[in-house]
């Protein structure tokens, strides 16, 4: 029953002033155990805010992040799942599933979380799951039209992960849920 928040591409204060109010009201400390952030926060204040939400904060570096010390990629293990984190601007073409799958194999993770496209995506393929939480503030993107604010909450419970997607569409929060089950350790990893 581990709740993991996947969030990113806030671009505060350059492209957006702040998180939408409805999102902010939902994000209260105490419920979430981990936060994985794809990057492009951009300033320290956002980092502090996220840190306040949950002390276990993992960030990778986006191209506009002001803190240069964030790593390019990160992997962590939560429960039975291995998670990989990367901003995504390094993987060209941006948002391409095959390239991302390559990265996933490279990092050897079950779930890969990337951003940069400012568009929510959740792919499942034989090696695992690729999740793009989109932009939490709905910041402008040169490669996406009509960016909706969105983020992702993962509920990791044993061998099963439930992905809740929160999107702000027309001023209303819409929630969607996707179930993923880890089939078994043997199949999902190829030996390297």
């Amino acid at each position, binding site marked *: 029953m581990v709740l993991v928040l996947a969030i990113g591409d806030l671009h505060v204060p350059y492209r957006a002033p702040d998180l939408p109010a409805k999102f902010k009201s939902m*994000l209260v400390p105490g*419920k979430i155990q981990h936060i994985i952030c794809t990057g492009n926060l951009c300033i320290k204040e956002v980092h502090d805010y996220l840190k306040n939400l949950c002390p276990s904060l993992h960030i990778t570096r986006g191209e506009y992040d002001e803190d240069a010390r964030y790593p390019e990629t990160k992997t962590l293990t939560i429960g039975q799942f291995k998670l990989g984190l990367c901003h995504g601007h390094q993987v060209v073409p941006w948002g391409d599933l095959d390239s991302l799958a390559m990265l996933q194999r490279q990092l050897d993770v079950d779930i890969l979380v990337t951003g940069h496209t400012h568009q929510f995506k959740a792919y499942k393929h034989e090696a695992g799951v690729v999740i793009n939480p989109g932009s939490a503030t709905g910041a402008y993107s040169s490669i996406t039209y009509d960016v909706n604010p969105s983020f992702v909450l993962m509920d990791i419970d044993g061998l099963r992960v*439930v992905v809740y997607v929160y999107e702000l569409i027309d001023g209303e929060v*819409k929630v969607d849920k996707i179930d993923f089950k880890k089939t078994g350790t043997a199949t999902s990893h190829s030996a390297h």
Partner: protein
Amino acid sequence: MAISPVPMEPTGGALTETTLNSEDSRRFGNLRGVQWRIDLGILPSSPSSSVDDLRRVTANSRRRYAALRRQLLVDPHLPKDGSSSPDLVIDNPLSQNPDSMWGRFFKNAELERMVDQDLTRLYPEHGSYFQTSGCQGMLRRILLLWCLRHQEYGYRQGMHELLAPLLYVLHVDVEHLSEVRNMYEDYFTDKFDGFSFHESDLTYKFDFKKFSELMEDGNGSGKVAANASSLSQLDPNIQTIVLLSDAYGAEGELGVVLSEKFMEHDAYCMFDALMNGSGGAVAMAEFFSPSPFASSHTGFPPVIEASAALYHLLSLVDSSLHTHLVELGVEPQYFSLRWLRVLFGREFALEELLIVWDEIFACENCKLNKLAENDVDTSSGVLDSSRGAFISAFAVSMILYLRSSLLATENATSCLKRLLNFPDDVKLEKLIRKAKSLQALAVDANNSNPLLTQAGMFERSESAAVRGHSLSFDATSPRTPLTLVPDSYWEEKWRNLHKEEERKKDALEKQAPSIRKGWSEKVKLGLSRTESAPSSSSVDKRKKDPKLSVRRNLLEDLARQLGADEDTQSIMDDERADVKDQGVEDGQDFNDKFACTTEQTCLSGNAGSEENSSIFSDPPSPINGVNDHGNESGRSSVASNSSIDEHDGGTNTAELCAHNPEGLPLPVSDSPDDVSLEASPNDQTAAEKSTVGLKERKLLSSSKFQWLWKFGRGGGEGIPEKGQVSEANKGCSNRFDHDSVTRCSASNGGVILSSESSKGETVDQNVMLTLRNLGQSMLENIQVIESVFQQDRAQAAPAKNVLVGKGQVTARSALKELRKISNLLSEM
């Protein structure tokens, strides 16, 4: 079936348990789990209920718990109510909606966190059982479910300590069961029609020969019969255990009363019953609630009420310790909160606690005092049962156990330290025995909780008078000196003080009562009360506690003397001033005021004489109340006369006596118990203008009063004497009867003489002095009467002529008597 258990010692139990249990033949004395379940009301308690009944009830309660568990333990992954597509906007983990599954889940998680905080610290000294994950899991679930079920209480620290022993006794029972199982394996093994099956038994391999051998060995049906018969020959305890745990009995496995599998269920039921009180009065949950009890009349939380009841009981039992604690500011809830909330769980080791709880649970929990529901003086609701009484009695016995060390300390913190660190080497049987002896008292104490009457200890007393009253009641009972020797010293002091004050207050008669009251209170708190007490008692005949009556009798003397002081002064003042106009008002005031002072009585006595005299023709009863006061003041004035004689030479005595006699006879009749009642201020009031006869009567009674007062002064032996004298007075003072008056005076004289002689040994000097004074004052009184007599005759008699005529005759005869008596006295 009636099974009287031979008490077996439970694992590690103290020997004392056998002595305690042997008195009451409890069915399951050695099986605490079962016994407590019966006591708490889960299992039927009637002795006729069979094992099958027990099993059925057990099974039902377990089913209920299982259903509850399923319902309340939330798994958010499972869709609510089986719906396949829950509304995600509500049911997502971040939802703020409190009704959502996730909301409930988080609330449960929060509760669980709180529970865990306590559980990890539970009974570390018995960690081998309590800290195991299985036990912790059970405790956690039980507490969670109970708190979810009773949202209004939530989880409070201490609930886990109530639950832990319950689970423990169940565990002990199960262990006991396994021991018995090992010893009497035969009865427990699953014998199918008498054959014990071996694992290698295969029917097709069945060896008929072997079978016949078995039969011959008696392993067959013969053994079954043997088993059955031997079962009943077993120790009855073992028998019950076997029957209770028979997997094939009523309700099958669910009904096995001592079952390890269902320990959680049983513990939950016990905990629930303990917290709810099972319809009885003592519901432990109430101790955790911050809000006042529903039917409480004080608006205090139940713990506070219970603590107050505790202190009240202590004050009844050992008031010196109680006052000591109250003075130090040790409020009961400082320590009793912990005692009550955990039922002494933190004060005793686990094994001893089990014994204590045995006793507590053995008491009935049904509400006593149901009729008093609507009264203002309802009992403290949460302790209103014999179980509650035992709890408060036990707490008081604990406090008494520490008596010496508590009395030795002089500050509150060390007192609390001692109370909160109860010594380990406690003789539990002593405590329990004492608690049992106090139990009956506790029931009464609970019914008259001072907290409810609002005159008690928690700074809720409303009026100063009431407060003073309660204080004097509580505070002075152990400490009031029962000897009158110091009184004379004080008396003189007060008299001196009083004279000065009186001179200052010439124009302030109206306010004098209050001033006088304050003054007397200033001097001595308790005695000030008693000073007014006689007058007040004469007014409204309050019922006093028997134990206080002794004190009051003796103190009345002092009061009288005080009053005498005041009276003399006031009378002097009054006579000088023209007080007659005020008399009416004063008389009325005096009648009205509950805590009258003798000042008042004097006033009324003196000034209101006209008024009273007018009333005198009426039946005596309405005047009696007034007369009581008059009597008192009269007597006190007489007394003061005599005392003043010692100092001043008593020019006023004559005047006083003139006033006194009239009202005196009447009040005496009304209050035979109080010596002081013989004087009433109204005597004074009635004195001046009423008939001579009345005056004479007053004089007579005043003289008697004087004597009585002197006796009382002389050394407090006077109770029987006073009784005699008062009786005499009573006899003589009932009516305006000439004969009675004479009889009275004669009898009084006789009584007094006899009492005088009996008093010979003690306080001789005092007696002599007083008697001499008496004689002098008597002579003076007589002179006054005669003079007044003359005056009356001279005056135009008002409508009371009839009485006057009669009065003259009686007056004369009374005077003669007086002369005789005074002569006797002066000779002494």
